[in-house]
């Protein structure tokens, strides 16, 4: 029986990108549905009534919400190919810890960088760089967080790479100057088709951020 997989998504969402990468890594065919977040579809509201947010993964009619949960689900259901989480429980716990760290820190700090000004922006930029340095230390000399192959933490973190340019422009700083290994790692990930085809162009993302800033009346 053929699987029916639908992804309700929004093109610049780093959370949606995570799921796109996971599906691509596993070679899963799916229907991509672009949502207009100012005018959410009845399907989205029906499939995620509690949060009303994207991404929503619909597998044979059943919805799964929250990007980390979706990526784990994909890894568990399509077991045969491209394992994202390691098999050893201790290593799995470490992967989950770092994915949780990315989730707790990167989006909110990044958001403050482009939304705020002055002292608040400076403080957020400083903390953002500190978090990247912590991640850089964790990566160490490995090719990927997953070791020799793309893993769970890579999938969870790399979508933010397409937002780095926007953060840098808004915050007036260079991520490469502060965390060269993170940039090297991101570029390595981008050489994989599953990643490069899932991430939009960073200029397009920056353009989107500028539109948002205008809409919110920021600077």
């Amino acid at each position, binding site marked *: 029986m053929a699987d029916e997989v639908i992804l309700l998504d929004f093109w610049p969402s780093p959370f949606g990108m995570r799921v796109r990468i996971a599906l691509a890594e596993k070679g899963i065919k799916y229907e991509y549905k672009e949502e207009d977040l100012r005018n959410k579809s009845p399907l989205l509201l029906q499939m995620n009534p509690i949060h009303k947010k994207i991404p929503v993964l619909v597998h044979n009619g059943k919805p*799964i919400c*929250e990007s980390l*949960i979706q990526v784990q689900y994909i890894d568990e259901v399509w077991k045969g190919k491209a394992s994202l989480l390691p098999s050893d*429980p201790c290593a*799995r*716990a*470490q992967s*989950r*810890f770092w994915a949780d760290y990315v989730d707790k820190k990167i989006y909110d700090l990044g958001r403050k960088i482009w939304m705020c000004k002055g002292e608040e922006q400076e403080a957020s930029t400083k903390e953002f760089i500190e978090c990247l340095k912590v991640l850089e230390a964790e990566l160490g000399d490995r090719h990927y967080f997953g070791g020799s192959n793309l893993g769970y933490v890579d999938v969870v973190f790399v979508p933010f790479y397409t937002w780095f340019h926007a953060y840098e422009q808004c915050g007036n700083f260079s991520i490469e100057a502060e965390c060269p290994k993170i940039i090297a790692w991101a570029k390595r990930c981008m050489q994989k088709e599953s990643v490069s085809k899932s991430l939009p162009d960073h200029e397009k993302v920056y353009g989107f951020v500028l539109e948002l800033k205008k809409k919110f009346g920021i600077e």
Partner: protein
Amino acid sequence: MAEEVKLFGARRSPFSHRIEIALKLKGVSYEFIEEDLQNKSPLLLKYNPVHKKIPVLLHNGKPIAESIVILEYIEETWKTNPILPADPYERAIARFWAKFLDDKCIPAAWNACWAKEKEREKTMEEASECLKTLEGELKDKKFFGGDKVGMVDIVANFIAFWLSALQEAVGADLLTPEKFPVLFKWSEELVGCPIIKENLPPRDQLMAFFRARLESSK
């Protein structure tokens, strides 16, 4: 080979209590190390340098931090009395509710209890919405996990026990049998389980702690 399991925690903390429930449910022997949260031990800072928080589980010398990450680890390492369903879809649903509790429900309940007068109404409404959603998920089940205590019940321990002490200490009435009969019944059921009850902090001590905190915030 003898297993060495240590838990760095605090009796007062619901996050620490979550881990004790899971270990006990699975019959795992462990050493509990009570941390003074105002004066964290060098060992804790060594084992959780990133967040410097409890709980931290140490298994044969390897540390694991973040309570839900620890719960998943315990589930995968000790197979007795599973706390997550076997089916991947059901597992995703359980993880969704655990996340809802941690990200939305528990912070909303906490904030509503500590809110200043002018924010009280709004925060109480938000918290009530969360509890209503939670009650909707429970429906007519004994526990979120079905007939047995599962991960969602464990993660909801704050709602089952700590909330009652907190709301009484600050004079809020968020979770009552009149407002949320199903959830209230579940909370009594959960706290009534021997494994859950035996490691709860004494309610009067918890209330005294919350009252002291309320006084110092005035």
